[in-house]
């Protein structure tokens, strides 16, 4: 991913703008069910932005990010149980919690490489899942309802789906901007460098380990916020949000979306949600379609670009 401005990046920005505009207009027109779909797509897009930073830019694969999604969802749930709560405060809490959890998890698993790193992410995610499952006061395995919608600074309560969708779009725009800044930042360049050659980065005086932990932390926050919004949208949270199936879906997002463009990620989000919901209308067996799609993408890759590079076996030997 070249940082230098190129036509492709410029075009992508336009497409993103169009998508956002389309989403805004759609909010006024869609029915309740379709609004929920749009909401899910936008939320997955937000999460994918953070994950792309981790996977495509820093070259770290995590099979455990659903843990952050569940963390965000449960925090949203806890706030909701208090009754009236503030959106900004709630999201700030989610961000802090996921930043802490994310840097801890990142610091641990980034001491390993390759396949063992994958296993470590899985292990932590499983532990988080069991942790949530054991919270019997919060519904245990069944989860609980997140019935109360937050208000924004006490002014507007997001009690209708339309209002929540608009809030999601605003948060998404902020997220796009933040991801954009980080990508083009000094740290963003370091992430690319670390993915290329961690040993070389160390020889210049910077710890590649530290850079990767930052990428992990940022992606954890994005995922957590996505999880919180998801819980508010669906008015529900459960440990399933933290299962490794969900982690797999999240990685599939980045896989399908490719490594370079943000609009690509949007399409991936549409695909994942689309398959879940769209196919689910006709048959219960939508995972079959998703599984087949993923397998097909892996067997016949067209444009995996940066993602493939991040995961080639050669990278596993390089110093972390």
């Amino acid at each position, binding site marked *: 991913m070249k940082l230098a401005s190129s036509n492709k990046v410029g075009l992508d920005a336009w497409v993103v703008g169009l998508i956002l505009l389309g989403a805004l207009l759609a909010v006024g027109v869609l029915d309740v069910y379709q609004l929920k779909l749009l909401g899910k797509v936008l939320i997955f897009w937000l999460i994918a932005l953070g994950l792309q930073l981790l996977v495509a830019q820093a070259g770290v694969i995590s099979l455990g990010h659903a843990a952050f999604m569940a963390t965000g969802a449960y925090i949203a749930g806890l706030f909701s149980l208090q009754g009236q709560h503030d959106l900004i405060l709630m999201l700030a809490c989610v961000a802090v919690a996921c930043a802490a959890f994310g840097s801890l998890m990142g610091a641990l698993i980034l001491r390993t490489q390759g*396949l063992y790193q994958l296993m470590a992410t899985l292990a932590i995610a499983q532990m988080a899942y069991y942790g949530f499952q*054991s919270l019997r006061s919060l519904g245990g395995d069944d989860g609980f309802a997140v019935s109360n919608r937050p208000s924004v600074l006490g002014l507007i309560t997001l009690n209708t789906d339309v209002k929540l969708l608009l809030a999601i779009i605003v948060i998404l725009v902020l997220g796009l901007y933040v991801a954009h800044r980080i990508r083009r930042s000094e740290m963003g360049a370091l992430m690319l460098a670390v993915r290329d050659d961690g040993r070389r980065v160390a020889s210049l005086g910077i710890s590649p380990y530290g850079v990767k932990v930052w990428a992990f932390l940022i992606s954890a926050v994005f995922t957590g916020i996505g999880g919180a919004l998801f819980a508010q949208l669906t008015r529900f949270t459960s440990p399933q949000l933290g299962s490794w199936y969900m982690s797999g879906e999240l990685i599939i997002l980045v896989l399908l979306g490719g490594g370079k463009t943000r609009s690509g990620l949007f399409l991936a989000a549409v695909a994942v949600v689309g398959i879940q919901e769209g196919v689910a209308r006709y048959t219960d067996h939508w995972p*079959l379609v998703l599984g087949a799609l993923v397998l097909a993408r892996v*067997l016949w890759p067209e444009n995996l670009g940066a993602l493939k590079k991040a995961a080639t076996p050669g990278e596993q030997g390089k110093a972390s």
Partner: protein
Amino acid sequence: MSLALLLEQLLNGLQFGLMLFLLSVGVTLIFGVMNLVNISHGSLFMLAAFFTYSAGARWGYGLGLLIGLGGIIIVAILLEWLVIRRLYQKSHLDQVLGTFGLMLIFNELVRIIWGSEPIFALTPNWLSGSIQLSENLYYPTYRLAITVVAILAGLAIWLLLSRTRIGMLVRAGADKRETVEALGVNINFLFAVVFVIGAVLAGLAGIMMGPLITVESGIGDPLLILALVVIVVGGAGSLKGCLAASVLIGMIDTLSRALVTADFAGGAGRAISSMSVYLLMLVVLLLRPQGLFTR
């Protein structure tokens, strides 16, 4: 907890560990020889159980066993030929994602064919009942039987790998693909053989575990994760490490569930017992990443 109860749990732990071993051996062999991570290995466990017990319900246990083992061999051959073969050269991430997709497909296929309700897995009459092991301890005959079978299977694999020509080729193929090919051995055939062996072991475990668990879609997957944990803890490619780690993890998992009651540590007891295995894996990864049992 009485001594008899403790003994029973220890035996259960050993038995679970041995089942895990059967599953893990396949995964570690396939990883060691073909450098392939197969997330769908648990699906083979599941399919064998479904084949055996749905056929067994209709045509008796004996025929069910045959169909189970035969069926899994056919599935393994086809799977390796059509899909797995194309994944050998790909990155580990691609393999994980691709076989994750396979797992989703298999789980749904099972739901389509057999429905979402679990199927009933009968214990054959001649294996039901229990054997008296001591004054207070009666242990189910079935569990003893499968423990024995697992040990025998393990021995068979060990003999195969260390004493036969195929075994030598398997071990050689793990290190020097070109050398083996230069010897005139068809590497594709060798890989297929390894895959099928792994599949048969997984299938065997699935068939034997059937009556002890609920036979439904997705049962192999949590075990697959445990198998991966076994490989991390035991060291990839080490058969002895695999056995030791499997039994260790089987014991930890079974005993922690039995000994740590749900009320311990204010409801966190259940979580701790589920997490114990993963905590072990994390500790190993951080302190001794080459595995506990490797040199």
